[in-house]
């Protein structure tokens, strides 16, 4: 281990593995387990079409006679259906795989949209300052004073009424991404603005100006890379939040339609049968949702601890 020569050709991975972050990751069992679970869920979601024994979107594979079979470890189950079936006779395991895929997709896309809007607005607001800053930040305050769910419910209900549920169901995923993405941008904008204000005063920004770089280049190439750590941290929290928002909206019947269920709409569709004994339709997707959100939050916590120099423990 006493190799002090700088190995320039060290791969990106080994550089990361040997960095402080890599070290703290290996030393933190919660982070390791969380990442493993998250990776497992993500892989299952990505490869859902390969893993799933049935295609829940294919109506010809669904038989209403198969409805409400319990999971295999309970009496009266059909060996075909690992986690049982839902009220329409769909295999719950396959539906969960596809649903997780949708939930993750919506979460990530919504956060990407949030991040894009929030980072651009935050950068401009912090770098330019003055009146523009006040204007943009008041807009953020106004946006924040509406709760995300309230905005989303109003928006989705209105669009549903406008386009009719047929068209709405077809484009539900885009509506969800747009509404969750737009309503949460101030989180990013505020965080980015605060770090930009701190970074802007540092001398490397002066020296970039002295070297004749334009404001755009200074913002994107110099200040933004130095403000990434808080962005990473809120991104994890925001992904978890976006998944929850999507699930809540779907639960309320304003999200993904029952024909293309996300985790939220699955939970919602099973909710009607929970007292008739078919608890698994709600419970199993619910557990998956909770675990998914929990591991993302745990990873976010770990990342916040590592990236925050004030909590640096050496």
């Amino acid at each position, binding site marked *: 281990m006493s190799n002090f020569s*700088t190995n*320039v050709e060290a791969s990106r991975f080994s550089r990361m593995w040997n960095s402080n972050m890599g070290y703290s990751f290996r030393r933190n069992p919660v982070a390791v387990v969380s990442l493993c679970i998250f990776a497992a869920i993500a892989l299952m979601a990505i490869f859902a079409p390969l893993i799933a024994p049935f295609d829940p979107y294919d109506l010809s594979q669904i038989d209403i006679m198969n409805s409400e079979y319990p999971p295999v470890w309970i009496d009266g189950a059909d060996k075909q259906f690992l986690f049982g079936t839902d009220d329409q006779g769909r295999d719950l395991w396959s539906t969960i795989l596809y649903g997780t895929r949708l939930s993750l997709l919506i979460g990530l896309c919504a956060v990407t949209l949030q991040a894009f809007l929030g980072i651009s607005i935050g950068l401009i607001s912090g770098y330019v300052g003055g009146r523009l800053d006040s204007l943009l930040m008041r807009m953020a305050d106004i946006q924040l004073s509406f709760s995300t769910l309230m905005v989303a419910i109003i928006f989705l209900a209105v669009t549903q009424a406008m386009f009719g549920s047929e068209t709405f169901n077809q484009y539900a995923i885009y509506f969800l991404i747009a509404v969750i993405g737009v309503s949460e941008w101030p989180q990013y904008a505020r965080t980015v603005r605060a770090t930009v204000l701190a970074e802007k005063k*540092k*001398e*490397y920004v*002066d*020296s*970039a*100006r*002295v*070297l*004749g*770089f*334009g404001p755009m*280049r200074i913002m994107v*190439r*110099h200040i933004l*890379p*130095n403000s*990434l750590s808080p962005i990473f941290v809120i991104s994890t929290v925001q992904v978890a939040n976006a998944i929850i928002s999507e699930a809540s909206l779907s639960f309320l019947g304003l999200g993904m339609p029952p024909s293309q269920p996300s985790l939220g709409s699955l939970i919602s569709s099973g909710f009607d049968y929970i007292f008739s004994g078919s608890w698994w339709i709600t419970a199993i997707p619910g557990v998956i949702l909770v675990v998914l959100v929990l591991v993302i939050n745990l990873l976010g916590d770990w990342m916040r601890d590592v990236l925050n120099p004030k909590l640096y423990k050496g």
Partner: protein
Amino acid sequence: MSLLSVRDLSVKFAMRDHSVTALKGIDFDLAKGERLGIVGESGAGKSITGFALMNLLSRPGFIDQGKILFQGKDIVHMSDAEMRTIRGNRMAMIFQDPMVTLNPVLTIGQQMVETLKAHRKLSKSDAEQIAIMKLRQVYIPSPEERLNQYPHELSGGMRQRIVIAIALLLDPELIIADEPTTALDVTIQADIMELLLELCQSSKVGLILITHDLGVVSQMTDRTLVMYAGKIIESGRTSEIINDPQHPYTQGLINALPQQTEPGRRLKQIPGNMPSLTGIPDGCAFSPRCEFATDQCRITPPEIVQYEHVAVACHEVNRLHHVTSKGLDK
């Protein structure tokens, strides 16, 4: 034609309902390849002068009046886009602390290539070749490897060399160095100064050295400006100013050097402090601290007069010279 001429430059800072003057009536010229030192206590306006020359004063500071002619063009009224073609390209600046002037998240190579590409149309590999050449000029060992390193992997002296290499990257005509060695180890300070001097001499680059170290000024520069409370109070050839200062403030600065005092004695410091910009006294700004001040000094601000070989802003310079030379005769 001189490389840079500053005419009656004044810089103000906007306060809530009025503005304070940070620089007033700054006048000087710099010939091509000439090295100029600007000395003074903290708060004299040295760094503000540096920033004003780059037209980089940010709010609340602004250039109130005057001209800064760089190669005959007035940069005070230049557009931002025009100014950017000059900054870094024709005019470069070196800051005090190399620990913070390099961008911590970009490698040395990325920063150098980016600088080159911002001003010239170059391929990445050509830019890297130039970067390596410049790193070699500032005596960085194995420059190829340095390109892939981040600033935190290098020592302070090394970083300042890299900052100098970046400043030289586009072969500027003028380098403004704002206390380039203050943040460095004493042993490295001399190396960096020597390097800067060598590079300026070999490629005929003009240098404006902002410092409070008179020793450095005497080694490095041809001419010196002494600043006090936002004004130039004495200017002339460095050797004249160091050996025969005329203004009582300059004399005070030189007498305050530890070398001027016998071992075991207290340093001969100048009593009092630099006035704050909001409370600059009437008349000569130095008068409250000056042992030779007369009533006239406290009422009318002194004009710059030519005395012997230097230009000096002092009413009492004749009498003073008489007194001090008499003192020396004894």
